[in-house]
C-alpha cells in the first residue's frame, strides 16, 4: 500500500515493511503500519495538530518524538497517551486531545507485580556508548543489564543514515550509523551475561540504591553494583514567538519521523543551527525529497564540520551565518519563519528581517547531557559513571570510545582478571571528541592529465577513512594521523574507493585519460535517481557551493562495498573539472524569501514552558520583582510543573535569567524529582483485569 504521507523510496533506507492495519483518527478510518508509533501513523495521514492546550487553546503537535515532552499526547482507546511511544494496533481509536483529558475509564492493561532484581552493572541507554560499554563488561563475564526506552538498540545511531567520521580502526568510520548499530548489537548477542531490555524506560534512581524501570510487562526495581549512565543527550531549544507551533521540531524528532519511520512530515524546511546536527538534518531532509529553504547560524561560522556545511551549500541550500530565527508564524501550524541578522552578541539587527514560507522549522541549537540519573545516584552514594553524550557532548564515534573505556574500567574493578584499558585509549577518545579545528588553504591541483582524486577537505577534523581506504596508500597527512588534513601523492589507479568512503562527500575523482578537454569527474551520489537523466546536463558547483557551470550526466554506478553511496560520472569542461565538488539538487528559486517580511511578535511573547504555556515575559516580570529561586518562578507561573518535568523549559528559563543580566549563582535551580516520565498508577500497582 502507498500513502502520500510516507516516503515510498529512499536512497539509503529500505521501506519499513510491516503489516497494514486500520485505525480511526477523530472517527475517520485510515491505514497504518502495525507496531509503528501512533504519532507516525497520524502524521502519515497528513494531520499535524494533535489537540489544543487547556490554558490558551493553542494548537499542540509533535515536538521531541522521543517520549519526553508529552506534546504529542492523543486520546488513544479512551486514555490520554504519548502517541510517539504508543505502538499502533488494529482498530485503535485515536482522537485529538482538546483541553484536559477525561479520566480514562477503558479497561486497564495487565502488568505483573513489581519485581526486585540484582545485577553487577546496570547500563542506562543502549546507544553507541552503552552498547560499547556493555560489550566490554560482558566480555569479562560480568552480568550486565542494558536498558533502553526504544524498541530497538542503537540509540540515535538508528537515525544516522550518513557515514561516520572518526577513524576506521577505532569506531567504524565510513560506515553508516544504522549499520554500526547492527554491528554493535551483533557483538552484544555473543555475550551470554548481557541482558538487553528494550522498550524499558528508567523512571528514577531512588535513595535506597534502587533504579526503577518501566518494562512493557511491569515494574522492575533493579539494585546494581555499578551504574553506568549512557543516556545520551536532549536537544536545547530557543524561545521565540511561535516556537511551539506544530511544525517546529527538534532535529532529533525530524530524524525520527523521516529516517526511522519514513514519514514525509514536511515539504519545505528551515533549519535553525549550523552545528553538525542541523547540517545533517538538512542533508537527511534533502535525501527524503524535501526542500531545504535555508539554515540559520548565529555565529560567524557554522559550528559543524566544514565538509558538512560545504556539502549542504553545494546542494543548493543557503547558510545564513550571523542570523537567527526571531519568529515562527502560523495559525494552527507553522506557515513561515522570520530570519534576522544578529550582531556578535546575538542581538537582532532591526531592518534585516526576511520571512520564508515553510511548513517545518528544525531547531538544532545544541545538546545537553542527560545525566540526571547519575547526579541522583552520586547524591545517594551509589557507584555511578557517565559515558558518551551523557558525559560530554561529542560525535557518536567518540561516544562509542568513551563507552568502551568506561566499560573496561568497570570490568577491571569487578573482575580483576580483566586486562586494563590500553594506554592509548584515553588519548584516542580525546581526539575523537575534538570539534572542527583550523581550516587550511584550499588549492585544487593544476594537473590536466591522468587520473587523481581531489580532496575538497581542508579542516582538521577527527576523520581518516580516505587515508585508510586507498589501496595504494597514496592519501596521507603531514599532520596528526586522524585529525590531519588529507594530502594526495601521485600514483592513483582510479579505483574511486576514496570517493565512495568519504563521510563528508568531499572527495572527487578527475579522469583526463579518455578526453583531456572534457574529463570525467566522479562525485558521490546519495539521492534518488529521479533527479538525474543520463545525457542531460546538471548544475555543478565548487567546494563551497558556488555554481561553476554545467556538466553532462554520464551515468550513476553503485560503489561495491559501500552500500547507499553511488558514484555519479559527469562530463566536465577541463577549465573547471578540478574544482567541481558537487551537483546542485535544488534550484535557487525554491529558497527565496517572501516579498515582504511578516509582522513579528515581541520576544516577551515567546513561550518558554510549552507544557504550561508560560511566556518569557511572565518570567522576566518576576525576575524584575526580585525573584531569585526557580522554585518560586515555578510556583507562581507553573513553568516546570508540566508533563516533561522541566526538561525543556529549564534551559530556556536560564537563558531568560542570563538575558536579564542576573548572575547564575544568584538563582537557585529547580528541585529535581522523579519520575523521569509519567507512568500510570496501575502500572505500579501491578495488577489488571484483562490478562
Amino acid at each position, binding site marked *: 500500500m502507498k500513502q502520500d504521507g510516507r516516503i515510498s523510496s529512499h536512497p539509503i533506507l529500505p521501506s519499513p515493511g510491516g503489516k497494514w492495519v486500520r485505525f480511526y483518527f477523530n472517527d475517520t478510518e485510515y491505514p497504518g503500519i502495525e507496531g509503528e508509533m501512533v504519532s507516525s501513523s497520524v502524521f502519515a495521514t497528513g494531520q499535524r495538530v494533535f489537540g489544543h492546550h*487547556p490554558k490558551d487553546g493553542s494548537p499542540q503537535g509533535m515536538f521531541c518524538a522521543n517520549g519526553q515532552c508529552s506534546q504529542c499526547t492523543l486520546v488513544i482507546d479512551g*486514555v*490520554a497517551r504519548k502517541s510517539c511511544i504508543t505502538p499502533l494496533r488494529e482498530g485503535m481509536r485515536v482522537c485529538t486531545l482538546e*483541553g*484536559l*483529558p*477525561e*479520566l*480514562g*475509564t*477503558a479497561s*486497564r492493561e495487565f502488568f505483573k507485580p*513489581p519485581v526486585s532484581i540484582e545485577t553487577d552493572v546496570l547500563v542506562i541507554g543502549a546507544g553507541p556508548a552503552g552498547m560499547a560499554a556493555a560489550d566490554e563488561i560482558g566480555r569479562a563475564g560480568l552480568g550486565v543489564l542494558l536498558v533502553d526506552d526504544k524498541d530497538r538498540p542503537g540509540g540515535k545511531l538508528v537515525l544516522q543514515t550518513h557515514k561516520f567520521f572518526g577513524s576506521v580502526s577505532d569506531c567504524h568510520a565510513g560506515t553508516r550509523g544504522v549499520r554500526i548499530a547492527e554491528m554493535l548489537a551483533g557483538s552484544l548477542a555473543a555475550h551470554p551475561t548481557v541482558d538487553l531490555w528494550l522498550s524499558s524506560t528508567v523512571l*528514577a534512581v*531512588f*535513595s*535506597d540504591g*534502587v533504579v*526503577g524501570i518501566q518494562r512493557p510487562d511491569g*515494574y522492575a*526495581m533493579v539494585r546494581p553494583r555499578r551504574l553506568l549512565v549512557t543516556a545520551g543527550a536532549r536537544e536545547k531549544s530557543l524561545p521565540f514567538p511561535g516556537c511551539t507551533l506544530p511544525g517546529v521540531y527538534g532535529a532529533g524528532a525530524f530524524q525520527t519521523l523521516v529516517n526511522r519511520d519514513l514519514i514525509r512530515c514536511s515539504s519545505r524546511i528551515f533549519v535553525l543551527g549550523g552545528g553538525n546536527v542541523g547540517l545533517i538534518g538538512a542533508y537527511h531532509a534533502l535525501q527524503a525529497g524535501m526542500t531545504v529553504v535555508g539554515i540559520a547560524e548565529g555565529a560567524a561560522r557554522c559550528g559543524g564540520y566544514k565538509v558538512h556545511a560545504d556539502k549542504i551549500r553545494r546542494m543548493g541550500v543557503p547558510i545564513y551565518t550571523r542570523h537567527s530565527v526571531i519568529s515562527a508564524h502560523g495559525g494552527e501550524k507553522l506557515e513561515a519563519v522570520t530570519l534576522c541578522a544578529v550582531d556578535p552578541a546575538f542581538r537582532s539587527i532591526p531592518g534585516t528581517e526576511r520571512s520564508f514560507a515553510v511548513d517545518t522549522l528544525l531547531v538544532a541549537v545544541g545538546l545537553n547531557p542527560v545525566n540526571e540519573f547519575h547526579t541522583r545516584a552520586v*547524591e*545517594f552514594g551509589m557507584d555511578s559513571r557517565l559515558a558518551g553524550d551523557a558525559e560530554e557532548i561529542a560525535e557518536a564515534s567518540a561516544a562509542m570510545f568513551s563507552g568502551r573505556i568506561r566499560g573496561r574500567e568497570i570490568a577491571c574493578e569487578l573482575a580483576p582478571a580483566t586486562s586494563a584499558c590500553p594506554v592509548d585509549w584515553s588519548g584516542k577518545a580525546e581526539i575523537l571528541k575534538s570539534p572542527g579545528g583550523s581550516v587550511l588553504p584550499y588549492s585544487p591541483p593544476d594537473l590536466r592529465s591522468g587520473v587523481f582524486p581531489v580532496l575538497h577537505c581542508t579542516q582538521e577534523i577527527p576523520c581518516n577513512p580516505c587515508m585508510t581506504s586507498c589501496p595504494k596508500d597514496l592519501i596521507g597527512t603531514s599532520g596528526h594521523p586522524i585529525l590531519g588534513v588529507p594530502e594526495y601523492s601521485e600514483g592513483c589507479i582510479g579505483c574511486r574507493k576514496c570517493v565512495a568512503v568519504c563521510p563528508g562527500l568531499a572527495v572527487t575523482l578527475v579522469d583526463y585519460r579518455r578526453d583531456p578537454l572534457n574529463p570525467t569527474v566522479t562525485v558521490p551520489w546519495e539521492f534518488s535517481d529521479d533527479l538525474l537523466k543520463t545525457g542531460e546536463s546538471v548544475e555543478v558547483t565548487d567546494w563551497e557551493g558556488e555554481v561553476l557551470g554545467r556538466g553532462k550526466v554520464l551515468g550513476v554506478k553503485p560503489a561495491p562495498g559501500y552500500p547507499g553511496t553511488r558514484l555519479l560520472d559527469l562530463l566536465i569542461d577541463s577549465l573547471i573539472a578540478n574544482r567541481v565538488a558537487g551537483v546542485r539538487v535544488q534550484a535557487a528559486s525554491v529558497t527565496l524569501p517572501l516579498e515582504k517580511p511578516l509582522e513579528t511578535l515581541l520576544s516577551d511573547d515567546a513561550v518558554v514552558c510549552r507544557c504550561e504555556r508560560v511566556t518569557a515575559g511572565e518570567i522576566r516580570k518576576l525576575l524584575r520583582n526580585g*525573584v*531569585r*529561586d526557580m*522554585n*518560586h518562578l515555578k*510556583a*507562581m507561573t*507553573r513553568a516546570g510543573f508540566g*508533563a516533561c*518535568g522541566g526538561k525543556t523549559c529549564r534551559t530556556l528559563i536560564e537563558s531568560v535569567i542570563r538575558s536579564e543580566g542576573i548572575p547564575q549563582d544568584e538563582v*537557585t535551580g529547580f528541585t529535581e*524529582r*522523579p*519520575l523521569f516520565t*509519567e*507512568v*500510570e*498508577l*496501575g*502500572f*505500579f*500497582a*501491578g*495488577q*489488571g*483485569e484483562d490478562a
Partner: protein
Amino acid sequence: MNADVIVIGAGSVGTPLAMYLSEAGFRTLVIDAGASAGQGNNKCAIGGIRATHGDPAKVALCLDSLAVFRTWQEEHGESIGWHQGGYSFVAYTPEIAGSLRGMIPSQRQAGLDIDWHDPAFIRELIPGINPEGLLGGTFSPKDGSASPMKSCYAFHARAAGMGARFLFRENVVGIDNRAGVYTVRTNRGSYQSRVMVNCAGSSAREIGLMVGIDLPVVPDSHEAGITEPVRRFFHPMVVDLRRAPGSSNYYFYQYDSGQVVFCVSPDPLITGTDHRETSAFLPQVAARMVDLWPSLANLKVRRTWRGCYPQTPDGSPILGQVGPEGSYAAVGMCGQGFMLGPGAGSALARLITGRPTATDLMVMGSMRADREFGSTEALK
C-alpha cells in the same frame, strides 16, 4: 533593635504569622535558610485543609484557617488554588466506622459541619469507589484544599507588602538572650529584637535548644505524589484509615487544576529529616489507591517527593509563649502546618501584640509546651 519580632522560618506558619504581625504594625524580620518562602516542608504538603480533627483546639484553628483560604481570592484578587471539595473519611471496617462516628458529636459541638453517610452516598461522592465491604463514611463539605506553595508565596508577598523583611539563604547558627534582647546569629549576620518566634518546622528542636528549651518535636518522613491533570472527576479529599503492610493511612484529592495529589503514612514511621525519595513508595500507594478506586489505574503519576511531619508525642502542635520572656513557638504541626498556619499565625500574632481572644487562650492553653504529652489525637 533590628525588628520588633524576629520570626525564624518562612514556611507554612512563619509566613502567615509575619503577615499578621506586619498587619498589626509590628516591624517583623523573617529569617529562613531556603532560597524563598516555603522551601522547607511547606512545598511538600499536599494541600488538604480540614477542620475535621478530633481535638477542639485544632478544630478552632483550622476553622480560622479555612476562612482565610476560602476568602483569599475574593479579598486579595489572586488565586491560591482553593477548592471547597470537602473531606471524606471512608470506612471498610467496623472499627474505623465506629471510631469516625464516635467523634462526630464533639466535632459538631466544636462548630464543624460533618455527617456520617451510607455507602450509596459515598459511592455518589466518589464515583467508582470499590463498593465491596464499604460501610459508609464521613463527609465534611466545608473542608477543602489549596496550593501550599501559592498560598505561602501569597502570604509572603502580602507580608512583604506590609513591611515585613525576609532574609533568605540564612542559617541560624546561634541565639543569645541578654537583658531581654535576643540576638539571632546567622551565617551572614546577627539581628536583634525583644521578641523571637520559633517557626522552624523540622528544625524546631535545634532552634529551641538555642534559647534553652527542649521542645519535643521529632520529624518523621512521608512520601507524596502528583499525577497528570484530568478533568474534574471528584471533589473531596478521600482518606482511608486502614492499615496495610508498610503503611497506615493514605489520602488523595483532585487539585484545582486537575492533578490528583496523594500521600501515604509509612508504618512504622520513619524518623528523621531524610527528604530523598524511596523505591518503596509508589508500588505501596498505587496498589492501595487502585484497590480502593480501580479507575485511578489509568491516571499517570507525574512526580513524587518526600517531606517531613514535625511530630509531637501527642500529635498536637506547640503554640504560644515558651521558655524565657519574649520567646514564642509555633512548632510541632505534625504534618498539618499548612492547614493550621493561618489560624495559628493569627492567634499567635494576637498574643504577641497583646490582644488574644478567649478562644486563642483556650487553644494555646491546650497547646502549651509544658503539657503532658499523654493522649494521641485520633485523626492525626
